[in-house]
């Protein structure tokens, strides 16, 4: 859906994004990076607000810059909290639908649908100026999804929402992804991204650091062998058995909490072998997880 080739954007001597090349598939992609990494610049480039200094952005095979037609297929929820405060929520969304070229009736229908999807019916006739931060986020999202775009670009959509709002919005975003939309969503809270998707796009200093499935990305980080933590009966026996194999670099175990943490350089073999070892030796495994196989660890390894 989105195809970016050698994209760069600079302002004088300041470089915003630097030589990005990637392609996104339909589904939800988590968009990550520290502050100042160039996330907002990239989103602005994607929505045609900025002109690339170099390279190209294609959405659905068409360039984005100076192409109003393609923007009909794009929904954008900016991070900025700047609003037409004197409008009601309903007029705000309806107005945007008119801009997208729908007739008055169609616009109202679409606005009503999007507003109800975001759970804002109760507040749609109040002025936006009186909205709380979470309500503003919802109305911005309603605006982004109302014209049923194929591509959704959401910049920190969960920021300022309360847990209920987050929960509902994350469900909505996941559903949109399952429906085959291309959703790019940025957030600083890694748990939220993890909840929505396994696919990420990680940039830092304007350059692409990683792109794709986080578990595959984790696999590619060779410098850190994968840690596997296991809670089981007979920790010492399992420890001894695991150490028989060369790919296991170390095992730390703690008899008291009956927990061990192994480090392996070959996670595939390790996991294929583990069930057999446990079952054959009658060791009951209560739980099993990799403490550094999550977004937080991946982010940590790549960014720091």
């Amino acid at each position, binding site marked *: 859906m989105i195809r970016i080739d050698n994209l760069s954007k600079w302002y004088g001597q300041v470089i915003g994004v630097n030589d990005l090349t990637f392609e996104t598939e339909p589904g939800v992609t988590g968009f*990550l*990076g*520290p*502050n100042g990494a160039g996330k907002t610049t990239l989103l602005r480039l994607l929505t045609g607000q900025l002109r690339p200094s170099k390279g190209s952005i294609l959405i659905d095979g068409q360039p984005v810059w100076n192409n109003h037609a393609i923007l009909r297929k794009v929904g954008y929820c900016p991070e900025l909290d700047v609003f037409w405060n004197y409008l009601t929520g309903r007029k705000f969304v309806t107005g945007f639908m008119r801009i997208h070229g729908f007739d008055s009736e169609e616009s109202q229908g679409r606005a009503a649908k999007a507003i109800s999807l975001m*759970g*804002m019916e*109760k*507040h749609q006739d109040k002025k936006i100026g009186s909205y*709380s*931060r*979470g*309500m503003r986020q*919802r109305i911005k999202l309603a605006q982004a999804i109302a014209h049923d775009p194929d591509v959704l670009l959401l910049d920190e959509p969960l*920021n*300022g*929402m*309360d*847990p*209920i*709002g*987050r*929960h509902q919005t994350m469900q909505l975003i*996941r559903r949109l992804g*399952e429906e085959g939309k291309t959703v790019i969503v940025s957030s*600083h*809270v*890694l*748990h939220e991204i993890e909840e929505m*998707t*396994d696919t990420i796009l990680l940039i830092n200093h304007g350059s692409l650091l990683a792109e794709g499935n986080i*578990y595959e990305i984790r696999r590619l980080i060779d410098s850190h062998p994968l840690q596997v933590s296991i809670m089981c009966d007979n920790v010492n026996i399992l420890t001894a058995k695991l150490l028989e194999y060369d790919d296991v670099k170390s095992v730390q175990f703690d008899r008291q909490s009956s927990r061990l943490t192994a480090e392996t350089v070959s996670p*595939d073999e390790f*996991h*294929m072998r*583990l*069930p*057999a070892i*446990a*079952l054959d030796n009658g060791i*009951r*495994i*209560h*739980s*099993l*997880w*990799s403490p550094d*196989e999550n977004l*937080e660890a991946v*982010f*940590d390894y790549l*960014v*720091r």
Partner: protein
Amino acid sequence: MSVVLKDFTVKYGEVTAVDHLDVTFQPGSTGLLGANGAGKSSLIKGLLGLVPLAGGTATLFGMDICAENKEIRKSIGYMPEDDCLIPGLSGIGMVQYAGELSGMTGGDAMQRGHEMLFLVGLGEARYRKVETYSRGMKQRVKLAQAIVHDPRLLFLDEPTSGMDPGGRLDMLDLIQHISLSEKMSVVLATHILADVERICKNVVIIHGGRLATQGGMDELKGGYTDAFKVRVEGDGEAFREWLKARGCLVESDGRSHFDVTLPAAATSDLLLEASRSTGVQLRKMIPSIQTLEDVFVKTIEKDKDADI
């Protein structure tokens, strides 16, 4: 018994933000949760005397917050949500100033100010003007000014808002570190449940200005169940079918994650067996425990009129 609220009410004009609330904050770290407009900030501001009480009382360490307002504030630290700064001062200047205003002598405040700035990681930047600080540094200096006088109670209002992942983790570690000091109790008001889960021992959930639930973190989250959260690598469909054929309830979220409920009398061995038989790697297998989010959503949704 650090903070006791009785019939505590805060109103803004006609709007009731905190509604006859009775709650006791235990010593240690407490997460204060609630939806937007549930009254978290109003509760803290009411306790600090930043907004007047419309009714009720509260005592901090046995002192009445109205009668002994100034005295109490000597032993409270407050880190507000907004980017609050005292313009014109350097980092150390601002923290020292905050210390002096809290009743420390100039020398003590300066000494401890330096200590606190190193603690929050602003050692290098402490002579710079606070207006030139980045967002994350502003958060840090706000924390430093809140703890410089070694308060017995620290209120944090959304301390990680707007920080990037690295900064958030640093901030949380810092708060946890401080909350482990035996003398100080911490009240953390936030939207981000994961933050509370990470550092708080107790939880207070308020909704519509009233107490929804409260208790220890472990107690609220409840015990283990016979359900597991599982992530596999390989042919997930085969894995799923194998388990289904043996009476398991398997829910998938469309990715490689499954929620598996075992049939009666089965143990986690069944999952290992599934992995061995199908050749699918079992990458994660943890008992489903209620997360704080589950608790929160359940608690709030009991109230059908839940406002946004």
